């Protein structure tokens, strides 16, 4: 397929969900249940087109070419097919928009459209009784649209526009049941917390634009590391903001842009919105957690990867590690079905970010994709369970049982066989058991962390330690969830009454569970490097000057590379990673196995009493159950500080501003009183005088007008006499 066709099709992919949105938002009420079929059909077409692009782009060869057609600059090479449109021209100020399809984008297209399509199908049943049914599909449409916009962006401006659209649509969907206060608040929280990160993102974009004058990824990367830029900065013809030196400037810009990812991908310290976002409908959770919103941050970090300096990468790695650890420890004690999955997502996102930060680019992105499948499966599985619980509750006329609490479930395995099997496959995948996709990606990240620690030394060893620890914790809490929900005996009568859901709910689960199997990514179930994925998603060449790069990641031939030419020789890091592959695999197997065993011992076979353990580690358990008191901490610090400042401002307003305003009012009133007196006495007096004089004259002359005809006649004759005497 030609490059032009690929671009046209990708624009169609981008716009189709928008069409779905427009149809459902304007004619949704008339369409009724039909709106779900329309939206699903549109997403189905979208998915087919995405597969078409994926096959053609990832497995196709493209000649290097660059030409302008109809004012659109179309640039093709084997890495990326992109189109640039000049959007805004003011003097020397140029802003370009455009779309670009590289391997990352074409893979993400499939992830987004497939999961969105499955969520559409799933929601047909799950949201069937909702009064805003068509509105829900409209929001799904715009959510998918904005995420596809991020995926297809080939510049930071496009990305930022759709980034904010994602923020908006997540707000709409998380707060979809806005009649519930908790849902409305969760929507607001997600939006506001994201704003914090987005502000950093925007400042970063402006920093880059002010210096380099472009936001196109390829132009930007070409400029950052070029010799002209470096000499221009050295002789002062390019001014860096705040008088920073080039390395610090690049690091700060990279970290600020990464701030956007901290917000969207729920990294520490802005992860607090994500668990609350569980207030949205479960299909929305699946969409947010697997395919759209949280993936956006990681995807963006992968896109800007070439411009990150060694320090920025270290920062990213640290953030990812902390996030993975905190979230995993919290997930262990949660009792809400969806909350466990939410913290699991945060933890896995930490993994991905950590993978990117340590330099295991392919592994990190790989984990994003594999995680999308099994996390979507887990969420839709939980949705299936919750729906079944709801139906059972509805039949039993029970409105008090919490359908999401795992201690109200149990024994669902027998009632919901397909849900159980798919859920178990996804759990195994997330725990990192061989023969699953999760094993492949996680293993690569862990190997990367070992290589990173080995090459860096010192405190860097904390990264693999946390990584392995989190792997064990993940295996433990995921199996705890599965065992508590599906194994054993039903803990409530409701759980006993649950039934397997219909085809439209089960089908997406099956599809996603199948996609969690290793065979789709690598023929060798224990080595991802032999698969197409690692081959097609390579670490991009760093764009920053070579002295700012992490030494272990410098390509040997990168010294005189030109853009578009792939450097194939392995770096020191890659070799080390390869070297650590086997130890990492063995270690992770052991640790995951230990976690799974522990979960079975405690919750399945009850050899250790969970309550006793809980009592022994009471402070730790409380600490974890309360999510490390992050919300309280933010309440006491950030929010309290904001409130304090607001109070000062309010006091200032009340006393100073209002004082000034009131003073002016007082003075004005005084002046107006004086002018009022002047008006009343002098002006009105003059007016009244004139009126009175006129009136008096009128009253006098009025006497002459007696209304008596005879008087008039008499006067007329007096006049005649007078005339006679005058003229004769």
């Amino acid at each position, binding site marked *: 397929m030609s490059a032009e066709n690929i671009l046209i099709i990708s624009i169609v992919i981008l716009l189709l969900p928008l069409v779905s949105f427009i149809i459902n938002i304007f004619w949704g009420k008339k369409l009724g249940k039909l709106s779900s079929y329309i939206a699903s059909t549109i997403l189905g077409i979208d998915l087919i087109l995405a597969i078409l692009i994926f096959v053609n782009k990832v497995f196709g060869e493209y000649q290097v070419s660059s030409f302008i057609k109809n004012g659109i600059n179309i640039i093709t090479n084997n890495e990326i097919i992109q189109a640039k449109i000049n959007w805004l021209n003011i003097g020397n100020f140029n802003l370009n928009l455009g779309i670009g399809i590289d391997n990352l984008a074409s893979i993400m297209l499939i992830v987004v459209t497939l999961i969105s399509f499955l969520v559409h199908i799933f929601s047909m049943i799950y949201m069937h009784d909702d009064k805003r049914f068509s509105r829900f599909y409209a929001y799904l449409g715009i959510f998918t649209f904005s995420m596809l916009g991020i995926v297809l962006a080939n510049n930071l401006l496009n990305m930022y526009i759709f980034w904010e659209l994602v923020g908006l649509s997540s707000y709409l969907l998380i707060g979809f049941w806005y009649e519930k206060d908790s849902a409305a608040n969760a929507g607001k929280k997600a939006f506001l917390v994201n704003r914090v990160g987005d502000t950093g993102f925007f400042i970063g974009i402006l920093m880059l634009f002010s210096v380099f004058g472009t936001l196109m990824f390829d132009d930007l990367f070409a400029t950052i590391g070029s010799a002209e830029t470096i000499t221009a900065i050295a002789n002062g013809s390019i001014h860096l903001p705040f008088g920073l030196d080039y390395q610090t400037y690049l690091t700060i810009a990279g970290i600020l842009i990464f701030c956007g990812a901290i917000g969207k991908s729920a990294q520490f310290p802005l992860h607090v919105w994500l668990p609350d976002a569980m207030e949205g409908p479960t299909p929305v959770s699946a969409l947010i957690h697997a395919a759209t919103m949280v993936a956006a941050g990681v995807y963006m970090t992968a896109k800007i990867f070439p411009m990150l300096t060694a320090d920025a990468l270290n920062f990213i790695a640290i953030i990812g590690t902390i996030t993975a650890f905190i979230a995993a420890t919290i997930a262990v004690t949660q009792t809400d079905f969806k909350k466990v999955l939410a913290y699991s997502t945060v933890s896995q996102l930490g993994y991905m970010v950590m993978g990117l930060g340590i330099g295991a680019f392919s592994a990190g992105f790989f984990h994003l994709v594999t995680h999308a499948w099994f996390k979507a499966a887990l969420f839709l599985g939980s949705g299936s369970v919750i729906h079944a619980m709801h139906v059972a509750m509805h039949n039993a006329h029970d409105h008090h049982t919490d359908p999401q609490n795992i201690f109200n479930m149990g024994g669902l395995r027998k009632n919901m066989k397909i849900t159980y099997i798919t859920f178990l496959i996804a759990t195994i995948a997330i725990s990192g058991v061989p023969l699953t996709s999760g094993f492949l990606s996680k293993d690569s990240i862990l190997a990367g962390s070992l290589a990173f620690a080995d090459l860096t030394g010192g405190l860097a060893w904390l990264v693999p330690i946390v990584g392995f620890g989190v792997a064990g914790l993940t295996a433990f809490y995921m199996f705890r969830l599965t065992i508590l929900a599906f194994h054993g005996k039903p803990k409530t009568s409701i759980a006993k009454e649950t039934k397997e859901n219909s085809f439209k709910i089960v089908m997406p689960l099956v599809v996603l569970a199948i996609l969690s199997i290793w065979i789709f990514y690598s023929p060798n179930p224990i080595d991802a490097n032999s698969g197409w994925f690692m081959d097609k998603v390579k670490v991009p060449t760093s764009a920053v000057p070579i002295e700012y790069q992490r030494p272990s990641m410098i390509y040997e031939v990168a010294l005189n590379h030109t853009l578009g030419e792939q450097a194939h020789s392995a770096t020191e890091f890659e070799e080390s990673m390869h070297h650590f592959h086997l130890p990492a695999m063995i270690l992770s197997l052991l640790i995951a196995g230990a976690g799974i065993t522990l979960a079975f011992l405690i919750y399945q076979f009850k050899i250790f009493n969970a309550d006793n353990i809980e009592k022994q580690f009471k402070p730790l358990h409380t600490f974890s159950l309360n999510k490390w008191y992050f919300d309280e901490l933010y309440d006491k610090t950030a929010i309290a500080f904001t409130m304090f400042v607001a109070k000062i401002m309010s006091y200032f307003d009340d006393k100073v501003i209002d004082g000034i305003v009131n003073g002016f009012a007082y003075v004005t009133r005084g002046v107006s009183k004086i002018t009022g007196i002047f008006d009343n006495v002098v002006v009105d007096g003059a007016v009244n005088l004139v009126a009175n004089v006129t009136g008096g004259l009128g009253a006098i002359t009025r006497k002459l007008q007696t209304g008596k005809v*005879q*008087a008039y006649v*008499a006067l007329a*004759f*007096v006049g005649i*006499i007078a005339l*006679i*005497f005058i003229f*004769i």
Partner: protein
Amino acid sequence: MNLEAVIFYLFALIIVASGGLVVLSKNIMHAAFALMFTLFGLAGFYAMLLSDFLAVSQIMIYVGGILVLIIFGVMLTSKITGVELKTGPIGKVNYLFGAAISVIIACGLSLLFTNSKWIEKPVDKIPDSSINAIGYSLLTEYILVFEVAAVLLLIALIGAALIAHKDQIIDSDASSNEISTNNDIKIKE
């Protein structure tokens, strides 16, 4: 003093005396009858002035028509009991004022008439009757004025009937009650 002078002064006396009675009498009926004598006196003057047709017209139209009309008016607008038939002047100040104006005008006009040097062209040939000349003039020189006068009379006839008749329809109830309870009805405007 010849006969003509005697007759002139006789008629002049009748006219002035009865005219004074008209303007001074308190009784309207007396005034009306005094007016009749004034008009007769004037008719005599016309005859003396060789206008026999005018003299006859004066008697027929004024005495036979207008005066009867006025007497009808008096009858219709006054109480027959007689109390209302007597009517006085409107006030002493006005009375004196009016008298003064009248005297000034009378004196002034008399002075004017006596002091003026009139070019007198007495009609030498005394015709048998002026009626022939008048009829001829009316149908030749004054034909338009004659016709307009006819229309004027018609309009006056219709207008008078309309004005007097209109309110009788509107106040049909009031006028029917008027006979018995005349004083009780208050008419607004």
